[in-house]
């Protein structure tokens, strides 16, 4: 089997998985559930970017993957701080 076809199939599987996780983001009973869903989807997006870098042979996409990972970590920490304060911004 061709290598590019295999990797594109892997990307499609990851996309379907994050579509499943959208249920947790939209219908999650509490706020931390939604945050967990969003973080997981973003990690999958990082992996997808790395796979695209291999498929297309453009390795500067790895830089963008690292940038996305960092911004995601800052977002997770800020949400965690918001939760730690009891859900109030003051």
């Amino acid at each position, binding site marked *: 089997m061709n290598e590019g076809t295999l990797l594109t199939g892997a990307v499609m599987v990851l996309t379907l998985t994050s579509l499943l996780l959208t249920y947790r983001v939209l219908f999650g009973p509490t706020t931390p559930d939604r945050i967990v869903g969003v973080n997981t989807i973003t990690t999958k997006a990082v992996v997808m970017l790395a796979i695209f870098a291999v498929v297309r042979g453009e390795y*500067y996409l790895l*830089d*963008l993957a*690292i*940038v996305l990972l*960092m*911004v995601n*970590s*800052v977002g997770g*920490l*800020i949400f*965690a*701080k918001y939760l*730690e*304060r009891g859900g109030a*911004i*003051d």
Partner: protein
Amino acid sequence: MKMSLVVRTTTKLMSPFLVAYAAYLMIYGQMSPGGGFQAGVILAVSVVLLIVSHGYRSVKKRFKMREVGAIEGVSALGLVLLGLAGMLFGGFFYNFLKGWWSGGTVVLFNIGVGLKVGAAFVLVFYVMLRWVESD
């Protein structure tokens, strides 16, 4: 407000790598699309992580607000001077270092934009967190 000890120490361990990565993105910015702006965002992220985990006061002791403002102003001035220096050779932002190394003045332009964007984001965080944070 301080977060837990694990978060504090891990962000401290991460931040030198982030600064080195931002420096790489600035210096080799002409190889990839984007360049200076994402370098500035990473540079701001490495300080914002410390602010989020350690609280606002203890970071402000290390990176003074006046110094951050000075970096922002100086790099903005540098950008304008770079454009004006191109004026001597032909036009505004003329690439007068074209044959010297790969990219010419684009490298200097990326460094200036990166420093300016990072300092601007950190300054906005400082000014706004003064009203939000209690310690």
